């Protein structure tokens, strides 16, 4: 079910009202049933995959808690292997097989048959959330959850199960246990978040998509200027699409009295790539920091090893986004940029001031990497970069978007920046102000939004 659909609107109303009408002891059941429906609406049979990992991780959590140190590790490994195995099979099998087939085809070797299925939606998100549970139990930061229903809800909580934020058990499980009484402050704040997210999705992201999608699909028939604009627009399209989703997820959870972690913090204002990753998809970057980078040695090891670790983490992060060389390169570029940044820091080459220039360089480097992320293939990405630098400044995409449409897009992007700055403390606004803002944003969504039920970009991951 898509957040930007009428079905979700009705689903949200029914689920939220019933939640507050039910006594506390039944609420988890209701939320779990709603989450099942929410997920099964995409493809009912895929619920079996989630159920399988839920059962494995639930048992693993209890066994880890009870076991001695030696067995603890075994149960943790079993849980991780199961989760990564499911992810690898559904997400990476075809990618691996295709590449092996390419190699073997050169000497007429045997071909691995590909599997024909749709990738289960949000698989990477709920698998990572499930893994964080067993790891935290192993580390002793979280007690094993004995209530199977609550644990299932931790993995399947519908607002964040398909595209995050990827939560930690210490943060969410206590909230699922406690009785959440209706609170008009959090409820209205939730509505405001939902509206802000919807605005980012239907007014900005989907509008920019009208230009970005056809241009990136056919780069050979577009000029440098078309491609350059598409690259900048994509940077904002993906930001509004993904942070819009996160805002709706955070808002939906908030209306139920549950607080989810912040996932974005105005990332395009970053002055360096390190800062960008502290502001972009925070729940994923902290996941990689806590469960991959630090266990690899973090910043406590020798500098060359730090660089290797950064490259490893960002390559995995790239692959996490999708089984394709373009995502791997995208991750590698960010890894390299971080290595360069850390090297400059290490060599104490630091330029004071020039904030605008630093911001400009960071933003453009991030956009350059986005080309690999968005292009259909790696070859297309290199072609686009080459063409952008060839420098033809004619605008040829008039049939895709008239020039006045471009101005409009530029204005809404500027409006987004200003709006986000204004809304950064929105939870502290009075209820009246929040309600009025939510209403105003809702009206703007109707009149300026594009309701084609375009899927959220991050759903595919």
């Amino acid at each position, binding site marked *: 079910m898509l957040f930007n659909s009428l*079905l979700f609107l009705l689903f949200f109303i029914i689920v939220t009202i019933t939640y507050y009408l039910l006594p506390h002891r039944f609420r988890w059941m209701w939320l779990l049933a709603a989450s099942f429906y929410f997920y099964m609406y995409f493809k009912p049979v895929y619920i079996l995959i989630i159920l399988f990992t839920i059962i494995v991780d639930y048992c693993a959590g209890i066994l880890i808690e009870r076991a001695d140190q030696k067995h603890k590790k075994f149960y943790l490994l079993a849980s991780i292997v199961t989760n990564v195995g499911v992810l690898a099979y559904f997400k990476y099998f075809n990618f691996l097989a295709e590449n092996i087939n390419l190699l073997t085809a050169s000497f007429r070797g045997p071909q691995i048959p590909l599997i024909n299925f749709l990738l289960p939606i949000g698989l990477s998100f709920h698998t990572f959330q499930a893994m964080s549970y067993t790891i935290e139990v192993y580390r002793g930061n979280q007690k094993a959850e004995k209530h199977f229903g609550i644990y299932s809800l931790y993995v399947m909580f519908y607002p964040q199960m398909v595209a995050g934020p990827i939560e930690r058990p210490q943060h969410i499980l206590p909230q699922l246990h406690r009785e959440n009484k209706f609170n008009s402050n959090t409820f209205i704040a939730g509505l405001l978040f939902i509206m802000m997210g919807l605005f980012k999705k239907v007014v900005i992201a989907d509008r920019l998509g009208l230009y970005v999608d056809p241009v990136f699909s056919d780069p050979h028939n577009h000029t440098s200027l078309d491609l350059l604009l598409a690259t900048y627009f994509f940077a904002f399209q993906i930001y509004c699409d993904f942070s819009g989703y996160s805002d709706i997820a955070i808002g939906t959870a908030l209306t139920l009295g549950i607080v989810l972690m912040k996932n974005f913090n105005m990332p395009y204002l970053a002055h360096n790539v390190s800062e960008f990753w502290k502001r972009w998809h925070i729940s994923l970057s902290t996941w990689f920091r806590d469960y991959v980078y630090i266990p690899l040695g973090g910043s406590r090891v020798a500098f060359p090893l730090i660089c290797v670790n950064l490259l490893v983490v960002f390559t995995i992060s790239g692959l996490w986004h999708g089984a394709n060389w373009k995502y791997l390169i995208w991750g590698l570029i960010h890894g390299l940029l971080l290595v360069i940044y850390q090297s400059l820091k290490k060599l104490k080459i630091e330029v004071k001031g020039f904030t605008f220039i630093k911001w400009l360089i960071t933003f453009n480097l991030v956009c350059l990497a986005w080309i690999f992320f968005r292009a259909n293939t790696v070859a297309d990405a290199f072609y686009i970069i080459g063409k952008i630098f060839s420098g033809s400044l004619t605008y040829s995409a008039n049939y895709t978007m008239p020039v006045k449409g471009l101005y409009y897009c530029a204005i809404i992007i500027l409006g987004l920046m200003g709006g986000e700055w204004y809304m950064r403390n929105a939870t502290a606004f009075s209820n009246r102000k929040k309600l009025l803002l939510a209403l105003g944003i809702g009206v703007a969504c109707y009149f*300026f939004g594009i309701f084609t039920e375009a899927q959220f970009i991050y759903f595919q991951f």
Partner: protein
Amino acid sequence: MRKIIGIIILIISLGVLLLAMNQSFMNKIKQDQYFDHLTADNPGKHKLYYKAFVKTDRWRYGDLYGLCFLPQYKFALEPFKTYPANNKKPATGNILYIIGDSFLADKTLAGAFDKFDNVIFLDRRFPFGPIKPDTTKNNYMLMEFAERNLVDYDLTKTPEIQWPQKNINAKNFDNPLVFQPSSSLPTSIPDRAGTILFNKDLSRNLEILLFYNKIFTPFKEFKAYINYKLTGWLPKEVAVSSDKKRLLMNITVDTSYRSSAFRNISDNEVKTISNNLNAAQNYYRSIGFKQVILSVVPNPVSIYDDKRMNYNHLLQRVEKNNKFTVNSLFDRYKGDDKNLYYRSDGHWNPYGLDTWVKTTNATLDPLIK
């Protein structure tokens, strides 16, 4: 108080959701909405059901207006002339079968052609039975196409020869075939529940239930107007002609669609289309038709906006390349000063149909000795 309001909202929401899940009810609404503006007012129309669910502007002012709601293209559709059967006319022993598409659907054509006792229209878009011409009559076949539908025409892939049980001929043909959307559900209870609960059309059904009513038209028009003014944006199904006088189907304009009139079409592709048409002709002749006639209705964009980009002249190229009689419309339409197509719809207007009937008569008459 808060609880009571919550319960009321909950009940209303559940009611709407249940209605949207009832696909046969939704199909009935869709059909009634589509035919509402084509049928005369009757007392039944004033019932609550009609007021709440059927009264819509989705079709009343043209299918393209109903997709974009641009107020500057809100033109009432003039009714089509009917050609009822003329029983006083002496019998000719000739029957005309027309296999066509939306241009001829829902039209009364029984008496349109002087030298034919009857006209049987079969809508290519939906399955119909195998055609078994009446051997005691002279059977003629007219294959009508919209230009945009020529590209992917393949006899073996259309419902034309995917036969259900019923044979169609002049003797047993009583009613024109009207498509009845299927509302059959699977027989097993879990499958049935799955089909209802996870119905992929739920959002679309909700939109029809909640926002298709004509009371929303002013809001839709305002939205369409400001979006078009500010950004030049239109729904992807619609384009505006270069002279801004009419709406066009975007699939006939945007070159990324196969049916675009401006997509570069190679001679080989034209040959394939012609071969497919010739195969259809051979097939229909083999089952007993005396003559097969081709009649392609030009896209509005080909007549009124062909200078927009490089027009591919598909229609004329196909007409030149096939081996059977052609009821050629392009030059006749191009040379006509009067408007032949609705400005807010993808189809012809009454004058366009009337012109087609006259041209078709002129083509058919010499064929009949």
